[in-house]
């Protein structure tokens, strides 16, 4: 318990140092005029007149990220399942997934922007990013079945389907939970990049506009909101991941 406490304390201390440095860098102008102090960004975020714009953008991005995350998770897990249940398809699916992941997300974003309508583009980019993380997590998870368990199922005369349902899926839960957690920030970044090229609403366009108009405080505010969104999703899924590990790991 005390080890956990000291880890939490040192984490908090690290964050505090970072925030103080940010504030100082902004006030003293260490990194030039485009680096606002933290207090200015927070004041901007807190100002009532800015709230509707920022809240709308954040909610929009969160919504797109969530839908993309959901679709990507389902498709990624199903892809890995298909590879497991139909072994001849595994190499093909594997290569397809690697190719999808090999294209830089910024290129994916622009390619999707010319292919899909602006409204769904952020969802597609978020889903593609999530897809690969979950595909790898599920493949790893299915591969994590203990040899002794596999042989037990063989000796009990379990069918392929029963082995999948009662052994492969539960064995994969910890890896899947790790993947779900790791994919959350990916989905947020994917949604923002998807918005970047075509959307009119969300954190992406806010970033583009702020950058082009030298509104550095707005730029930083939007960036901070994106980071907070990722951090919240990551922390919440961390709870899921810990619960899964406790129950499903030996």
């Amino acid at each position, binding site marked *: 318990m005390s080890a956990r406490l000291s880890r939490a304390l040192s984490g908090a201390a690290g964050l505090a140092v970072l925030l103080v440095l940010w504030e100082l860098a902004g006030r003293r102008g260490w990194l030039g005029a485009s680096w606002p102090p933290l207090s200015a960004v927070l004041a901007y975020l807190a100002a009532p007149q800015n709230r509707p714009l920022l809240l709308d953008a954040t909610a929009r991005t969160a919504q797109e990220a969530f839908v993309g995350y959901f679709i990507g998770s389902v498709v990624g897990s199903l892809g890995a399942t298909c590879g497991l249940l139909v072994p001849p398809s595994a190499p093909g699916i594997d290569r397809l997934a690697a190719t999808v992941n090999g294209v830089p997300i910024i290129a994916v974003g622009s390619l999707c922007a010319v292919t899909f309508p602006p409204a769904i583009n952020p969802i597609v980019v978020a889903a593609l990013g999530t897809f690969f993380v979950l595909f790898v997590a599920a493949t790893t998870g299915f591969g994590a079945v*203990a040899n*002794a*368990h596999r*042989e*037990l*199922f*063989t*000796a*009990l*005369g*379990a*069918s392929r389907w*029963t*082995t999948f349902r*009662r*052994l492969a899926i*539960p064995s994969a*839960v910890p890896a899947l939970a790790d993947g779900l957690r790791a994919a959350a920030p990916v989905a947020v970044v994917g949604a923002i990049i998807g918005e970047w090229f075509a959307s009119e609403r969300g954190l992406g366009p806010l970033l583009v506009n702020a950058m082009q108009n030298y509104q550095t405080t707005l730029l930083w505010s939007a960036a901070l909101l994106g980071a907070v969104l990722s951090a919240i999703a990551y922390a919440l899924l961390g709870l899921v991941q810990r619960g899964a590990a406790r*129950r*499903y*790991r*030996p």
Partner: protein
Amino acid sequence: MTSSAIALQQVRVEYGARKARSVLALDGIDLALESGTFTALIGPSGCGKSTILRLIAGLQRPTAGTITVGGREPGRLAAEHRLGIAFQDDALLPWLSARDNVALAFRAGGLPVDAARIDRLLALVGLEAFAHAYPRQLSGGMRQRVAIARALVIGPEVLLLDEPFGALDAVTRRHLNLELQRLWSERAITTLLVTHSVEEAVFLADRVVVMSPRPGRIQQIRTIEFARPRARTLLSDARFHALVDELTEALDAADPLA
């Protein structure tokens, strides 16, 4: 009831048979286990005793020779849910309670779950109070009891035990051997026990097979005449000790490198 006699004829297992440096694990194994008898397989590590068990379970195929269970190929036994098996690693699923781990023997095979029988088996291994505990909450000895209950719950015709108590302390081990002896005496199942412990083998088995290593061969087969059911008092019997000493010497002679 179909016969569950097991026969191995001229069985040979070679790893990397097609490569220049192959390893001969088993050679010239002839072994017949009659229906309803308890056979123990002892020998130094690396003599291939677990391999014999795996061949009978259908988890592995021989390079040459034949293995039959009830006159048919060994994989059939597992496919027809007539096999009970327990390994040194208890192989309990960490996400299932003790009770659900025992029930898995039915569920994995797609058989109807016999709740009353699960309760009876849990009671027999003394775990009725721990039915809802998860493996991580149980001691090593308790986990092995669950594994034994799981192996027996479907009423198998063949029981294969691969050092199920190998990782346990001497006291727990002796205790579980007494329980296993009692369970087995209720209904004679064709059983093969692989073990390092000569004492365990002599106490439990009708016949003890001594193996020698490199390559694994059968060195001698010894019939154990002690009447059943065997009680704790047998463990302090002079004849019991004489037999254990004799077989221990045979084991020493079997492994020139030991």
